[in-house]
């Protein structure tokens, strides 16, 4: 009689891309493998080049707790923020993770955005956004898929967009899907 209801934390799959240098001029530590969220494995020390035979993981740079960065971050390295960032984060084809101690006052643009800390700013994820139970987000969220853990606090707007189609094979995209992120039907994917 009424409309039928229908109802994914992004697992991360390392992309076969060359390891890139840290994205900011301030000291950014490579993240220890044990603390990299999900399945992303960091290179403890960035190798100069990546051979075809070796399994390759995208480098994850880390802004440790105690570090504070003002300005714009851009590049093609995954980023883990456990410190403070003020400004703008534009890492279009990467994953940005804000750890439990992370405090970000910046707009974030990335492929995947995972929040466990505090963020004040607008989030734009071309693939997915996930808010952990300890996340505190104030700002709008623009993403094809969103995952929200119980306990997350979001003050702002959630809007869905069509998933970017230019990048990656369907198999890769399928591999990144997980249970708690819901694919958004095309009918729902329309911006302002």
């Amino acid at each position, binding site marked *: 009689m009424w409309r039928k209801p229908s109802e994914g934390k992004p697992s991360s799959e390392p992309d076969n891309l060359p390891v890139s240098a840290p994205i900011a001029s301030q000291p950014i530590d490579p993240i220890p493998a044990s603390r990299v969220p999900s399945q992303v494995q960091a290179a403890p020390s960035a190798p100069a080049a990546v051979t075809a035979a070796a399994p390759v993981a995208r480098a994850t740079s880390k802004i440790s707790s105690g570090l504070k960065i003002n300005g714009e971050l851009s590049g093609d390295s995954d980023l883990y923020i456990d410190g403070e960032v003020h400004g703008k984060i534009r890492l279009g084809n990467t994953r940005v993770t804000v750890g439990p101690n992370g405090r970000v006052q910046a707009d974030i643009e990335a492929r995947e955005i995972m929040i466990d800390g505090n963020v004040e700013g607008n989030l734009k994820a071309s693939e997915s956004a996930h808010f952990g139970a300890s996340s505190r987000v104030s700002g709008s969220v623009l993403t094809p898929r*969103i995952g929200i853990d119980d306990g997350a606090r979001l*003050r702002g707007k959630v809007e869905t967009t069509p998933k970017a189609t230019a990048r990656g094979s369907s198999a890769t995209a399928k591999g990144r899907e997980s249970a708690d992120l819901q694919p958004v039907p095309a009918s729902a994917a329309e911006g302002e």
Partner: protein
Amino acid sequence: MNWSAKHRPEATRPATGAAAVRPGPTPSAVPSGNLRISNGLKEFLWLISDVPHGRVLDLGPVWQSTVSFFVDKGYRVSTEDLLRTWKDFLAAEEEGFRSAPVGADALRISPSVLADKFLENALQYPERSFHGVLAWDLLDYFDPEVAPRLMARLSHVLHPGGAMLAMFHSRPAERFHRYRVVDSQTVELLAASTIAVHSHVFQNREILGLFGEFRSSKTFVGRDQVREGLFLK
């Protein structure tokens, strides 16, 4: 949007067999476990169904199920946990009062003045931003002097023809609950740590006064005596 003008598939369904299907609310508006059949939600969805890609404001905490439910239907969802924000605001005010030097301008201010100050930062949306507002039972937890100011702001951000769903307890709530949408006629009550005490039991005339700027209203009373009110601007 208009209650009388909209077609109701249920109301026109012919009765089959001995048990006639009656129009109107589902009779079992009673909690089952932590689930509650919500005629108010059903009606709310019906009222906003005319608006493609409409905007919905959820004044409770953000839940995956609620967001997914509306996003899957093509709506855009905004969330603002108003009660949590209010509590944080009061805590900050209290802290400011305590840290103020003796004799400074730190006299306790009235709830209405607090409300005005609160609204300088809360519910900051442009006029007519939303086609639907889910207020759940939060008005029961605000001071009666604060509620009218909240309502004025909510009315401001609601689009003409927009709908608001609010719940009112007929007696002080025994437990503090949060609500999330399960499906088009079911909400889940989640027992939560008490972030605010039940402040006021609204009488029907008070509710009507509170929603004076709205043009029509409909109330469903559950067996648990919780009144679900649907208000059309």
